[in-house]
């Protein structure tokens, strides 16, 4: 059966548009090299597999879209594999740091230095015990965090020692992570280009607006 207007609209509105929006947001994170890695979960919090962006109501449309568009499916699957590679690379880089005795000692020494010079009200730097604080610091390093907003517990510590601690962001595991991040960015661009192409084709062929809109001419008079 030939693809009709309603089915194409369902693809555009519940699959293609949310994915393009998500990829735009991910590109901001990837350009900052903030992989949104979280040591607590071992996952990339805000760079999930693409199906995670589809709402519950849109899932049947996602399944239909994926099975009907092999070219998009291939790119999406490839992208999700790259995302998994980045996740693994982040875990390895983080593990490398937390296992490094020199790093753990450094964090502890800086924490002691910080507390010696700061008033007691600023001594609490995270919800973690002191002997685990290096796990959070390693996460900040993996995510290449520059400034952090002042409502985070480690704001003062990080602002003061960031440059010193970032010296640990080197070595093969970090190079591998950077490479994986770069490749994910390229794959995201490929997916976005393919989704944009499909949207343009469907919209043009079936005369579909790129987004739903409110048509005033159809409004009920007097309401």
């Amino acid at each position, binding site marked *: 059966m030939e693809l009709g207007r309603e089915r194409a609209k369902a693809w555009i509105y519940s699959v293609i548009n*949310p994915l393009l929006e*998500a990829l735009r947001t991910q590109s901001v994170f990837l350009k900052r090299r903030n992989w*949104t890695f979280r040591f607590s979960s071992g996952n990339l919090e805000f760079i*999930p597999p693409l199906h995670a962006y589809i709402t519950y109501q849109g899932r049947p449309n996602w399944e239909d879209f994926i099975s009907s568009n092999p070219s998009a499916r291939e790119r999406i699957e490839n992208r999700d594999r790259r995302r998994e590679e980045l996740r693994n690379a982040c875990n390895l880089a983080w593990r490398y740091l937390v296992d490094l005795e020199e790093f753990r000692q450094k964090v502890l020494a800086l924490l002691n230095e910080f507390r010696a010079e700061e008033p007691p009200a600023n001594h609490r730097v995270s919800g973690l015990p002191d002997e685990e604080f290096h796990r959070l610091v390693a996460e900040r390093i993996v995510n290449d*965090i520059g400034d952090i907003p002042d*409502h985070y517990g480690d704001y003062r510590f990080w602002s003061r020692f960031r440059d010193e601690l970032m010296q640990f962001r080197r070595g093969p595991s970090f190079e591998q992570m950077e490479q994986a991040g770069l490749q994910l960015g390229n794959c995201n661009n490929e997916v976005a280009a393919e989704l944009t192409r499909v949207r343009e084709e469907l919209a043009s062929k079936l005369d579909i607006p790129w987004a739903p809109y409110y048509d005033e001419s159809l409004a009920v008079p007097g309401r």
Partner: protein
Amino acid sequence: MGSSLSPLPKSPLIDANLLFDYLVWRFCVQADPPIEVPNLQKLSTRDLKEAFHWYLDLAKPIQTSPQVVAEIHGLAKSRLEWYDERLASFWRFAQRELARLRLQEDLIRILEMDPDDLPSFGPIYTSLLALAARSDSLVLTDEGKPRGRCDGKQIRVWGSSEILAEWQTRVP
């Protein structure tokens, strides 16, 4: 020592559509067992929800007007067709969540509302505009007409896209 990030505005005044979407989303994901999140008009994407959650947490105490709270009840019934036990559970959750966000609620009486704003914007936005002018607070709304009025009155206004942009560049 210091951050090059400018401080984010605190204690925003939130309109009914955004606060409704936020509360519905949080209610659904925190329910045990979780409830599938319905289609939300404003916080429509995963990232918008995360960004809004992040911002409200750091911007608390939040503010609104009693008219907004009443509107949320109406929206739960008209948009989601929530009644009886589902509606009761929603409000039990919403009260706890609003307490966590340290909600401050101030009443602008209908008789005290700006006679120019009220016919154009209705009591909800007229009350928010009055509170914003009084407290010099940021208004959170995605609605075009009130946003224009905020600009005219030199009231700072953000929508979900501004919050998303801040989240993308600030979240560690």
